[in-house]
């Protein structure tokens, strides 16, 4: 009950400000939070990055292991993306196996990397049908103030960009940089009381009616999209978010 009262008060406060064109942290509606990217944060990973997006803090580690390809892609590496939303990072997260929320975060980040052709997966083939590199992208939330989709996507792309294929350790020749071909960037917006805001904080997320993540590449083409929340968007609002995401995505891409 207490929780509901608090949420109602928060919603009132946020929507009142929004009606005056203001966000609780003073940002413009189409303004993402300050971004810092620290690459190579974890030495034990083949590639890694720690990203702060406002007060959201995420560490991504990329590991590569030798394994078998899937039957329908015998000459391609395998991508596996996992998100750990653990109670370390927020009271909102619970212990235990991945819940629907962390599965959604992982799958949206995965879809960006995969459909955005971030990595040339054919160059991760060692021997067709026999051996390929299995690439694990593990997204760990450390401190959670909303928008893990974008913080995780940015950290994943930064980690991939500095990753090295550990061929020597696996006795498969010389190490070489992970072949990153494209840098798909996701931008997430929420709808609150009819307003569209990018890069929501946690407080904005919990009062938001609906959420839309759009991932685009260097050419401004779209590679992944995900709507969430029990609210709706009009077709025009969707197109507006698409435009915002392409524009802001280009800006973020230049920073990693």
């Amino acid at each position, binding site marked *: 009950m207490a929780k509901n009262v608090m949420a109602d008060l928060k919603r009132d406060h946020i929507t009142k400000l929004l009606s005056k064109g203001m966000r609780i942290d003073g940002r413009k509606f189409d303004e993402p939070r300050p971004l810092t990217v620290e690459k190579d944060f974890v030495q034990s990973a083949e590639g890694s990055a720690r990203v702060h997006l406002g007060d959201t803090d995420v560490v991504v580690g990329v590991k590569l292991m030798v394994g078998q390809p899937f039957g329908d892609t015998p000459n391609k590496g395998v991508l596996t993306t996992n998100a750990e939303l653990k109670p370390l990072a927020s009271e909102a997260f619970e212990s235990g196996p*991945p819940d629907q*929320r962390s599965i959604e975060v992982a799958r949206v980040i995965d879809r960006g990397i995969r459909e955005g052709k971030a990595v040339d997966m054919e160059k991760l083939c060692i021997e067709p049908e026999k051996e390929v590199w299995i690439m694990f992208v593990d997204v760990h939330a450390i401190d959670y103030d909303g928008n893990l989709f974008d913080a995780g996507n940015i950290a994943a792309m930064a980690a991939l960009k500095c990753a090295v294929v550990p061929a020597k350790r696996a006795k498969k020749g010389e190490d070489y940089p992970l072949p990153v071909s494209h840098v798909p960037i996701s931008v997430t917006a929420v709808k609150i009381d009819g307003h569209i805001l990018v890069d929501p904080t946690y407080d904005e997320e919990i009062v938001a009616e609906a959420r839309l993540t759009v991932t685009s590449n260097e050419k401004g083409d*779209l590679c992944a999209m995900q709507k969430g929340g029990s609210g709706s968007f009009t077709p025009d609002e969707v197109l507006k978010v698409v435009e915002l995401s392409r524009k802001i995505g280009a800006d973020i891409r230049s920073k990693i």
Partner: protein
Amino acid sequence: MGGTPLPDGIKLIDENGKRLDGRRPDELRPLKIEAGALKRANGSAYLEWGNNKVMAAVYGPRECHPRHMQDPTKALVQCHYNMASFSVDDRKRPGPDRRSQEISKITSEALTHVVFTEYFPKTSIDVYIEVLQANAGTRCAGLTAASVALADAGIPMRDLVASCAAGKIDDTVVLDLGKEEDNFGQADIPVGYIPRDDEIVLLQMDGDLTADQFKTGLNMAIEACKKIYDVQRDALKRKYTLPAGKTDEGGGVN
């Protein structure tokens, strides 16, 4: 998207603009819906869409378990999407995988939007979607069936949700991808839509699309949802106006 290159000599759209199964780019696969297909559930719907066969059942509003998930102000709409182990070529291990959990989540959210959840505080409305035969587009088929099942259960709703995907094959934007089109195509855009209010309640996309192609695809999917909406309403009308005992054959678009 599969992203696999198409085997030599096969084109997804032929010189006459026809697709592998003979459809035009903006043509839906045949769709039939039967409302009230089950006895036990409070509401249900059976749907055949192309080669998809999907059953949806609704139970509730009923007491919400576990208790700590109860919302004192409204009902919780919980969707459980499942693919039968035999619904695909390579047998699927029983139980929820990550894909089906994601679909359950976005389907729950889409349905929550149309149910008057505030009428039933503390309860759960459980929606079970069972894919018996899968042939691309099962999440849209499931959402479409679930809407009808909710209405069949007599649950007060703002409106029905209709759902359909657009996609891109051979660089062309088309409607309602079939299995080969899904495997070898370039993009897929599943949409859940409420015609009355012109609102989008489910939206995903994967593949590679220009912004213009996306706009074209979104519009194509929305137009298709309007047709699907009519099939949904017909199914409900047929159930509720047929003389008791009369067999319901299911109607649809062909």
